[in-house]
């Protein structure tokens, strides 16, 4: 359990969170693979409601975002904030509470989704009792994180902490505002907002959950672990700070681009498109900063399989952050919206960026946490190629399916009638979905290899005790 010695980092919490994160990755990706199989063979829900696409799909997304993603962010946030502040975690018992309460929310929340409790708001499906629990645990997360920063022994607040901090503040704001609802029963509530307002609030939440959790949070991870990996300072610290503020300012406006051609004011849509395009600048500034940092440390690639994951994750980050603004254009969106291209876009980010940078970070962090070597570098290398192949195959399959759907749905004949029926188009997508299923299996297979590799690395060990190092007086907090 937590070490009360004030001169040691609290790394056992980090180790637990990493294990939970990998566990949820396997569970939620398996759910994803299963629902992708359901799109090929629709009868494999066997008439069970809890096995239906409608219930497993939110389990898949919530499990990945809140189980895998947030656990990884908490783990890496706790790990890096101690090391960049030169102090152990503030209120370690509260940190343990955050760790376990969060896992309980993901577990019970997942079961409630299977039972059919849902607000029907995408990525915010959990009902009001869970929303309240999430808000409480999230605020505790913030107390631990910002408390640690407040206690810091180093004067500057390193850039990764700005991103983790933005993650904590903005997600709290989005979650609380979007979840305001009137409870009717324990498992049912009605949103405080109605109609178009509800849609705008929901996508302000939905898009910024992508922005500040899946992008901002993971950028925090990148800014700490990439320079650590490479053994080099970040290429341009100034660029990283400029990118942070530009990112934070412009992201928050972009949500309504999910609602093109709907009953919300046109100026809101236009503004969201403009902001989406502006967003490309800070996103790519960060990508270039990462690539340039690693480019001077190429010799590390010889010995470090983890660095490959991070290098490639930056390429997919570049793709996803370009693809998004492009799909926000009304002339592209009219064809791409509601098609599987959107699913492909999300997964080029989720698999290519989020999962890969997390894998790279875990391969780096876990051996250091337990004071040993990675069990098998070879398995990690195989995992790398499986992750790349799975992601590419997934994205290609969904590009093909999405473009076909977009064209076929909108095709009209000479007298202006639709050329194809929705049902026929849906039925013709099976080959693409089959390909996607294979892609998912390859990616899940790679993740399972990592789980085994990390299990063997950790087995029988606990986190090594790391002493807080002395602070260089030039950077110390004067007290």
């Amino acid at each position, binding site marked *: 359990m937590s070490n009360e010695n004030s001169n040691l980092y609290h790394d056992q919490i980090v180790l637990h969170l990493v294990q939970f994160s990998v566990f949820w990755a396997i569970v939620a990706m398996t759910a994803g693979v299963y629902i992708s199989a359901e799109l090929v063979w629709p009868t494999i829900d066997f008439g069970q409601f809890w096995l239906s696409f409608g219930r497993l799909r939110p389990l898949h997304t919530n499990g990945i975002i809140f189980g895998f993603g947030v656990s990884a962010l908490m783990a890496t946030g706790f790990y890096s904030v101690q090391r960049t502040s030169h102090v152990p975690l503030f209120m370690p018992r509260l940190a343990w509470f955050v760790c376990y309460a969060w896992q309980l929310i993901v577990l019970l929340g997942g079961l409630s989704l299977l039972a059919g409790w849902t607000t029907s708001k995408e990525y915010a499906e959990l009902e009001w009792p869970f929303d309240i629990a999430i808000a409480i645990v999230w605020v505790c997360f913030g107390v631990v994180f910002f408390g640690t920063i407040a206690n810091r022994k180093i004067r500057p607040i390193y850039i990764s902490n700005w991103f983790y901090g933005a993650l904590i503040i903005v997600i709290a704001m989005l979650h609380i505002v979007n979840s305001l609802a009137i409870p009717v029963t324990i498992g049912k509530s009605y949103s405080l907002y109605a109609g178009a307002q509800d849609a705008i609030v929901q996508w302000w939440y939905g898009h910024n959950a992508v922005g500040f959790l899946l992008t901002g949070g993971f950028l925090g991870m990148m800014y700490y672990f990439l320079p650590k990996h490479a053994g080099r300072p970040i290429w341009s610290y100034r660029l990283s700070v400029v990118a942070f503020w530009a990112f934070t300012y412009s992201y928050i406006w972009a949500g309504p681009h999910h609602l093109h051609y709907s009953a919300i004011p046109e100026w809101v849509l236009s503004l969201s498109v403009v902001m989406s395009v502006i967003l490309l600048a800070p996103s790519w500034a960060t990508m270039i900063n990462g690539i340039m940092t690693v480019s001077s440390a190429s010799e590390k690639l010889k010995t470090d399989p983890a660095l490959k994951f991070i290098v490639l994750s930056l*390429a997919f980050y*570049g793709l996803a952050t370009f*693809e998004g603004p492009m799909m926000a254009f009304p*002339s*592209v969106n009219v064809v791409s919206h509601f098609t599987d291209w959107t699913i492909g876009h999300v997964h080029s980010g989720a698999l290519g960026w989020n999962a890969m940078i997390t894998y790279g970070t875990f391969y780096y962090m876990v051996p250091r946490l337990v004071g040993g070597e990675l069990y098998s570098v070879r398995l990690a290398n195989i995992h790398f190629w499986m992750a790349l192949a799975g992601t590419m195959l997934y994205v290609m399959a969904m590009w093909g399916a999405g473009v076909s759907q977009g*064209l*076929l749905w909108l095709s009209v004949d000479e007298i202006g009638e639709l050329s194809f029926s929705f049902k*026929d188009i849906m039925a*013709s997508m099976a080959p693409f979905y089959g390909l996607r299923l294979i892609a998912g299996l390859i990616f899940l297979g790679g993740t399972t290899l990592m789980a085994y590799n990390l299990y063997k690395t950790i087995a029988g060990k606990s986190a090594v005790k790391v002493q807080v190092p002395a602070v260089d007086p030039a950077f110390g907090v004067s007290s």
Partner: protein
Amino acid sequence: MVTNIYSFLLFKSLYQPLEAFKQLSQSEPSPLGVMLRYSIWLLVLPPIFSLIGAANFGWRLGAAEPLRLPTQALLLVSLGYFVVLVFGLFSTALISRWMAATYGASAALGRHVALITIVGEPLAVGSLAHLYPDVFINILIIIPTMIWSMYLLYKGIPIALGITSEKGMLMASSLVGWLLVAAVSLLGLSMTLWTLGVGPLLGV
């Protein structure tokens, strides 16, 4: 060496790509020469195959009836396809040369044009699939071809540009980032053109 590199590139690079990269590392061909005597012959293949295929069979997007376009529109689409490919090759070569400075690689533009063409050659030949423009069949053929091309990119950069394989890995990954963006831009550009009325008849 310089005189026979073109004929070597055009034919042997398909089945002896690593040998071609080695040859390339010893010569500095002119960019225009590479373009006119090597690249262009590969770049015309996809538009021609696509034109023949679409004119004879129509685009099969999975649903029952194929989508047919008037010949004039098909010609326009194929011409656009060719222009985009030429632009894609040249911009990729320029970006590759720009990146070369970071990784200490050769800066001879002709070498970069040839390198990118060797990498893309399997895709150009694989575009034979366009003769039967069924999207799924095309994707099935393009995926293994693309894997081969990516392998060539990662293998070829360190050989042809004379850098360590680790630096080559970084540079190739950066180029993959650019190529992914280029591919998705092509999708977005096509959709914008369709929305504007160029290409298939859409009810938008």
